[in-house]
């Protein structure tokens, strides 16, 4: 136990961190590691790798991921913003590089290979983008003469263009949804909501007509015809699991689900551990999202409000898309389940997100000062 009287950075961190968030993140990562034993051996065997190849790598990724999360949670809001700015610049640059020098996987250039390490810069771009947008929106809210919203729109345009160029429509949709949610919270006028909503619909229509695979997936989702092998087997796995699951290692359908360790880990969890277990996973995500939004609701500081809301929206939307695809509520779209699915870049990037959330939701004396200022004077502590 760290003494309350101590005033070192560790003691400060220990007493100010939001422990519920921390517990939820660690819990999800623990579940992810456990499910890795269930889901990844089948994939590894299919690729003629050692059965526990992905389990080992998952464990290996967990260490830097958790370290990143904890390290970032030490940062002050100002440092968060600076870190995000640097990360955004780096990841955008890397995304541009990936377009030219990246490894082409399944027809998309998303990966950049540095030495033996291959990373997906767009994953790191997401939390940084959210934080920077939150800053721009809050600056605009603080001083309407600052064109924060305009900059946010421009930034979104750049990011969306890079994602479409890869192409990675799933991430584009995710980023759009999160950015739109933040803009909405930042007080987007209704005329803009209608305008941007129709632009988004138009964009979706363009994607439908321009990309065959998008049209195919949407058609399959709507009509149920065509090659629905993935979602069919996912559904079979979930239904086979029933309330309490078949038991660890007893899954059969999991062996034939493609990407069982990443995009369809939720179905594997259902088959082996049951639907109640899946409900618990969803409940933990719901807890993270709603607690984050509750923070945002109470928060006095605009930047923190937008940033925390945006970051939990990122985790919430991504998990919702993944679970929705597994449950056939949404068209098939490759998206990892945050903190649970296997994947080095995705896991580390989500730990950056979680770290940002932890850093921004720490109890801070500044907040109390801001509260007092409402009573005392117009001397407002500007957002850091």
């Amino acid at each position, binding site marked *: 136990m760290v003494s309350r009287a101590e005033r070192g950075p560790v003691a400060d961190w220990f007493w100010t961190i939001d422990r519920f968030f921390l517990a939820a993140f660690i819990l999800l990562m623990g579940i992810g590691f456990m499910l890795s034993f269930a889901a990844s051996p089948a994939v590894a065997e299919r690729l003629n790798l050692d059965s526990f190849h992905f389990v080992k790598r998952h464990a290996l990724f967990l260490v830097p991921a958790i370290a990143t999360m904890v390290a970032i949670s030490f940062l002050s809001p100002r440092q968060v913003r600076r870190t995000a700015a640097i990360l955004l610049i780096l990841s955008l640059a890397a995304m541009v590089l990936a377009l030219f020098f990246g490894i082409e996987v399944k027809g998309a250039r998303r990966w950049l290979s540095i030495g033996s390490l291959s990373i997906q810069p767009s994953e790191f771009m997401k939390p940084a983008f959210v934080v920077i947008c939150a800053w721009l929106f809050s600056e605009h809210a603080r001083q309407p003469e600052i064109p924060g919203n305009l900059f946010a729109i421009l930034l979104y345009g750049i990011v969306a263009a890079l994602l479409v160029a890869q192409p990675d429509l799933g991430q584009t949709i995710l980023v759009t949804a999160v950015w739109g949610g933040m803009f909405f919270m930042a007080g987007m006028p209704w005329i803009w909501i209608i305008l941007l909503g129709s632009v988004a619909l138009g964009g979706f229509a363009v994607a439908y007509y321009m990309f065959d695979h998008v049209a195919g997936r949407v058609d399959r989702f709507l009509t149920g015809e065509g090659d629905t092998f993935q979602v069919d087997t996912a559904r079979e796995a979930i239904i086979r699991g029933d309330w309490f699951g078949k038991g660890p290692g007893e899954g059969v359908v999991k062996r034939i689900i493609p990407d069982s360790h990443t995009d369809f880990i939720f179905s594997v969890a259902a088959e082996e551990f049951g639907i109640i277990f899946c409900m618990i996973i*969803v409940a933990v995500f719901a807890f993270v999202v*709603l607690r984050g939004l509750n923070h945002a609701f109470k928060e006095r500081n605009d930047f923190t*409000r937008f940033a925390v809301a945006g970051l939990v929206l990122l985790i919430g939307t991504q998990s919702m898309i993944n679970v929705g695809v597994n449950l056939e509520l949404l068209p098939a779209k490759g998206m990892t389940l945050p903190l649970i699915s296997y994947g080095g870049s995705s896991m580390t990037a989500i730990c950056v997100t979680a770290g940002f959330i932890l850093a921004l939701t720490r109890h801070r004396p500044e907040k109390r000062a801001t509260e007092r200022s409402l009573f005392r004077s117009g001397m407002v502590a500007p957002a850091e």
Partner: protein
Amino acid sequence: MSFLSRIMDVKSKAHFSHGGNGRPAGATASTAFQGHRKRSASQARSRVAVIMAVFGIAYCVVGGRLVQYAITAPESVSSIGPADHLLASRPDIVDRNGEILATDIRTVSLYAEPHKIVDVDEALEQLRTVLPELDSKATYRKLTSKSRFQWLQRQLTPKQQSRILALGIPGVGFRPEKRRFYPSGPASAHIVGYVNIDNRGIAGMERYIDNQGLADLAAIGMTSDAKLEPVRLSIDIRVQSMLHDVLTESMAKYQAEAAGAVVLDVHTGEVLAMGSVPNYDPNNPAESAKDGWLNRMTDGTFEMGSTFKTFTTAMALDSGKVKLTDSFDARYPIRIGGFTIKDFHGKHRVLTVPEIFQYSSNIGTAKMADIVGIPGHKEFLTRLGLLSKMQTELPEVKAPTQPREWKKINSITISFGHGVSTTPLQTAVAGAALMNGGKYLPPTFLPRSRDEADAMAQAVVKPSTGEDMKFLLRWNAMNGSGKRALVPGFNVGGKTGTADKVVNGRYAKNGLNFNAFLSAFPIDDPQYVVLSFIDAPKTGEGGGRTAGLNAAPMVGEIIRRSAPLLGVKPKFGEDGSALLVSY
């Protein structure tokens, strides 16, 4: 000073101090700024609440979907059909004494769900260690197919099942099934029939049971695993087995192509035993010989030859135009339309009716038919059911053939058994009508009581004709070609028939015959008609090929073995009184 005013005071001071720090228009600007911030804060809060609500709804949808999945029954078996279909019971088939002829036994069948097989090569290799007969190529195709269900091997033994279970191959499973088992094997094959792999009746009484509605019930899923009331047949499996033995032995002994026989109860029309060889093993129908499928007794038609003279003579006597004591000139062959009708055992003299029957005179018989005339001939054979398709339970019944137009030459040849092809059973049934006092009874394979039989009987000949025919048959057996059918103690009467065999619509040049023997016993009060036939025998008792040397001894053998079981008391001695010595 009140609390409120003090706060106001502090606030205003702060304003001034703030404004005093080098910001001229500070007061107003700051107030306006403050208001904007408050507005935006409250707006942001309400919008955060909206987003929370949206997420709340989304989580409810996900939760609802999960509950929906949880209460959905697993669908992996839906492609196979309802499980109880395969477990549907068929009724046992038992003989008239309750001995089992067909019953269900439980087995399991192996299937695969190809999309769940992880390593096809490994799975196949392991399965073949238990089931070496599994065809590698076909099974590999099945396992790599895109389908979700494939039968691999039907009806395994419990031992095979446990060995496959021990292999632990994912993606294969077992479904319980019922398999039909026939304890008597080939002996009753043509009557009982058999079922296909899906337990549908394919032939014989099995098919009859399905046609009675079992198949329709199964099709709409109205079947159950419960035991059904057994179906009792009129067959006596003891007699049936003896008959089958005699047929098998005789076919080998006389080097024939086929043989068949029937034991028919003359008073009820029940078939007690019937069979033809070659036949098949209903427990393994697929591997049986190809020509074993044909039930020659009901589904094969033959020209019965001289056996038909029984009916011609009965017709002549029944018409009243001919009496037993009448004589016919059989000295010269009949020449008509380029054909010459001769006698095989030519006596070249005037013959009485019993002599015509005894010597099997074609000329005499033809002349008797001529007296009745063509319409009368046709009508009489129709009455005995020899020109129309026999009505019985077995589905395999062939309609008899007859000339499209009956001319005089046709009537003449038909009178001694050429020109009309009938099934052997049909012939026996017509014979029974002459032996039971003149009642025609459609044959049955189900038990039929005497009362039921009497109720449905149709009188077809006069009782006096029946009496005359009994005399003639007994006379022929004692003095004519039927001597080898005699069994001491059982008064057998009968008529042989040796027909030239029809091959591809022409009479065979190689001298092969179709031999039959129509008999009844005990002839003084006939209980049973026994008919035997042997197709294309190359030899017979004493080296000849005629019916008296092979078909007649078969009947003798059947009666000798089975009569005690049929409840016929033997009578020995000249006048039928019991002797004090035992044979």
